[in-house]
């Protein structure tokens, strides 16, 4: 239907939303296209989320023709002087074509170590439009920065880690994207979500919602989330365009591996404190349940503010945890592993920053923690890759996607029992490098909760064929 009034109609970008001005609220039902509009009385215009830009602009243009002025900034093109990408493998080409065919909106699911980054770089080189790469942590963000520099000789902008330097190709983290997308949401034509399972969280999803980008690419090895929110990726990014099964990757690109569980015992003092804490907690909970049958840990936390007994039980619980993760015996086991694998590169994952620093101070080996700055990260990773550092200790920051070449031995001391973490950690050890078998050690305290967590870790299908042996 034609627009009758001669007032100009304008579509503009406003802090992560689109404003359609020049139309009264009574005309709302006449707007063709998806019904995503809401009347905003505060500014006297129609408003919708920026994510709908691709869908509404065509519908609006059809309906209003030249009387519509589209003032939404257009992402600029990117001219790459150099494109130097390795030749894509057939599976990578298949993935790229499937995504292009899906109007450049969709997810590519490939196991760790099968070259997702190369597919994304190829997509950027092909689309030649302002692009934003969103990564889970700073290490990965910097890694993308390096890969873009190597592939295109392009010094990408960085938003995050205290920097806010927006360029036609920019890298950022999910947290920074959530904060800054309202401001930069109209600047990019292509969004790349690395480890896309981080996106659907209640807040982080706004990074996708507040952007006008018409092209979107999600990458992950493990899209599933225990809260089922991964279903929303279908509209936040686009439906799955390509999925490579894990079985196909194993054997072809990933190495064979062993999983070795090493139980450690607490020393006498630790065990005594540990048992005392366990008894205190059990006694407290049991005595509460006599009066309140459904008494849970959450109730305990709630009461801990006003009830000294509950607070003591809570403290006992935290003490138990810290005994588990920092048991002195673990450092001795590490020494044994170092002796056993003398001359090999070893990665160590700890459950806390404090434990990582403890290992580092004992053996004088480098760490990568969440607050390690860019220059040191690079120096440590490069030296580790070159074999100059025999060991690298990391807290959770290396869990996902950070390229660590040539590591054949990994040790997990402490950590939570989620399926995804296990897969990501295996991905680290299993990168294809020659024929040597990789080994993953799990150091867990015996007679503690950690044993249960270790069992849960092994339930993941990534652990289906491991060899279990005791040292």
């Amino acid at each position, binding site marked *: 239907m034609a627009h009758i009034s001669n007032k100009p109609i304008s579509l503009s970008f406003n*802090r992560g939303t689109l404003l359609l001005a020049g139309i009264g609220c009574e005309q709302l039902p006449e707007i063709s296209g998806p019904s995503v509009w809401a009347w905003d009385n505060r500014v006297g215009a129609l408003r919708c989320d920026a994510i709908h830009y691709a869908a509404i602009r065509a519908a609006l243009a059809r309906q209003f023709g030249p009387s519509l002025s589209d003032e939404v900034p257009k992402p600029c093109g990117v001219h790459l002087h150099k494109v130097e990408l390795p030749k894509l493998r057939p599976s990578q080409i298949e993935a790229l074509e499937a995504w292009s065919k899906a109007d450049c909106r969709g997810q590519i699911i490939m196991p760790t170590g099968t070259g997702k980054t190369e597919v994304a770089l190829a997509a950027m080189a092909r689309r030649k439009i302002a692009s934003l790469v969103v990564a889970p942590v700073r290490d990965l963000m910097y890694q993308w920065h390096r890969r873009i520099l190597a592939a295109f000789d392009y010094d990408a902008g960085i938003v995050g880690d205290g920097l806010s330097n927006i360029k036609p190709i920019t890298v950022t983290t999910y947290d920074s994207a959530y904060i800054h997308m309202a401001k930069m949401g109209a600047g990019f034509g292509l969004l790349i979500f690395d480890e896309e399972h981080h996106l659907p969280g209640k807040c982080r999803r706004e990074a996708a919602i507040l952007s006008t980008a018409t092209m979107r690419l999600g990458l992950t090895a493990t899209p599933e989330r225990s809260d089922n929110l991964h279903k929303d990726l279908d509209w936040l990014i686009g439906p799955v365009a390509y999925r490579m099964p894990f079985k196909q990757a194993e054997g072809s690109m990933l190495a064979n591996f062993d999983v070795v569980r090493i139980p450690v015992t607490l020393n006498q003092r630790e065990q005594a404190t540990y048992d005392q804490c366990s008894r205190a907690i059990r006694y407290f909970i049991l005595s509460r349940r006599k009066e309140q049958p459904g008494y849970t840990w959450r109730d305990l936390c709630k009461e801990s503010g006003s009830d*000294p007994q509950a*607070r003591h039980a809570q403290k006992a619980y935290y003490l138990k945890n810290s005994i588990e993760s920092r048991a002195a015996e673990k450092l001795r086991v590490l020494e044994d592993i170092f002796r056993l694998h003398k001359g090999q590169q070893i990665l160590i994952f700890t459950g806390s*920053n404090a434990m990582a620093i403890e290992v580092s101070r004992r*053996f004088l080996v*480098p760490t990568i923690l969440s*607050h390690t700055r860019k220059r*040191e990260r690079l120096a440590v990773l490069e030296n580790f890759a070159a074999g*100059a550092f025999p060991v690298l200790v990391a807290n959770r920051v290396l869990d996902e996607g950070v390229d660590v070449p040539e590591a054949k031995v990994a040790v997990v001391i402490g950590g939570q029992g989620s399926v995804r973490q296990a897969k990501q950690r295996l991905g680290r050890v299993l990168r294809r490098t020659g024929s040597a078998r990789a080994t993953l050690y799990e150091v867990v305290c015996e007679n503690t909760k950690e044993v249960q967590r270790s069992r849960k870790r092994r339930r993941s299908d990534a652990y289906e064929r491991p060899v279990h042996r005791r040292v």
Partner: protein
Amino acid sequence: MLTSDQSIVEFKAGRAITDRLTQSTHRHYVKYAERMLAIYRDGQGRQRRQLHREINSLFADEPDCPVRRIQAFCKLLDDRSIFRTDPDGKATKLRLDVFSRVTRFHPLVEKPDQLFEHDERKIKAQLADDLGLPWSEIEQGLYGDVMAYQPLERFEGYLDASALLSRYNVAQLQACLYRAESMTVVATDDLKTILRYAKLAKLLHDIVRLGPSKYRIAFSGPASVLRQTRRYGVNFAKFLPALLACKGWQMTALLKTPWNTSAKLNLSDSDGFTSHLPPPDEFDSSLEESLARKFGPEHDGWQLIREGEILHNHQKTFVPDFTFRHEDGTQVLLEIVGFWTPEYLAHKRRTLQLFRHHKILIAVPDKSLREGAHIGKNVLVYKTVLKLTSLMEALEKIRTEKNSC
């Protein structure tokens, strides 16, 4: 401000009640606050984690103190502290140096044997010799850039124990607002300040007049009309201290609980929270006082309406300083302008253009007039004080203009 991990709030029958330490319920906390301040005041040179441990042990035998409250105190104390950071990257250099030197001795073992001969203690002692520093100092500096290991340099502190507790109470309100999806203020006074600070906090507003000089102002962000979002919770939190410094208001914030249900946080100026911001510009009220005194209840058929009136057109608002009403119904709004730059004038003119169907009189001190500045219609220039006679003249002029046309 606190982090959401430090927020303590109880949800009861759809109401949010934040943790609050008052004279009547927590008189003994004044002592704790004094001791906490003393720990930081005497804490120069001590590591952040040591200070935190000490604050923790202060409350070891206090039955009424959740862990989060202690963590919140640590945060508020840290907020007023300067710790020695490592801007030159000394720790980084030391680490890379030490680790590189030690590589060829890897692994450092507890008990050397024929295969592995590098005794941990011996190698460390040798390193200390090479670097010319005692090992304890090297170990201290090795992670000197990690926040927990940084030593306190200076503590700017709080005025006294009750200032710390007041700050704590307001900080808990702010942290609770991180969960807020919208905020509504019903205001009778200080409208100008409320709107100005909301604008600074990047909030949008929607104004409804409830009665003479009583308004309901709904604050939210752009995306709030589309979906419920906690995106603007931080903006509400930033705005709160300004609101607490004002008078004549009631506030309701709509929150999401951790169980995804809704709850309300209700607050008003009579709840007795103390803002760390000063009350709105004293100038306004003292000027108002003196003008009201001079003017009296009625003057030549004119009445001075002391309560403010808001003119609003979407996000543009105009809150005049005074409203005058003549018995024939004529209403004139008076705005007293402190300065008079071309940019400000242009901005003011654009705003007034939106409200051109209202009668607005602008008073400007002549010392802030630029030479050759254009003085438009309805502009009253005054020397040091606004004289009643010239004001009456101007009001009459506007009134008769209306009658003549």
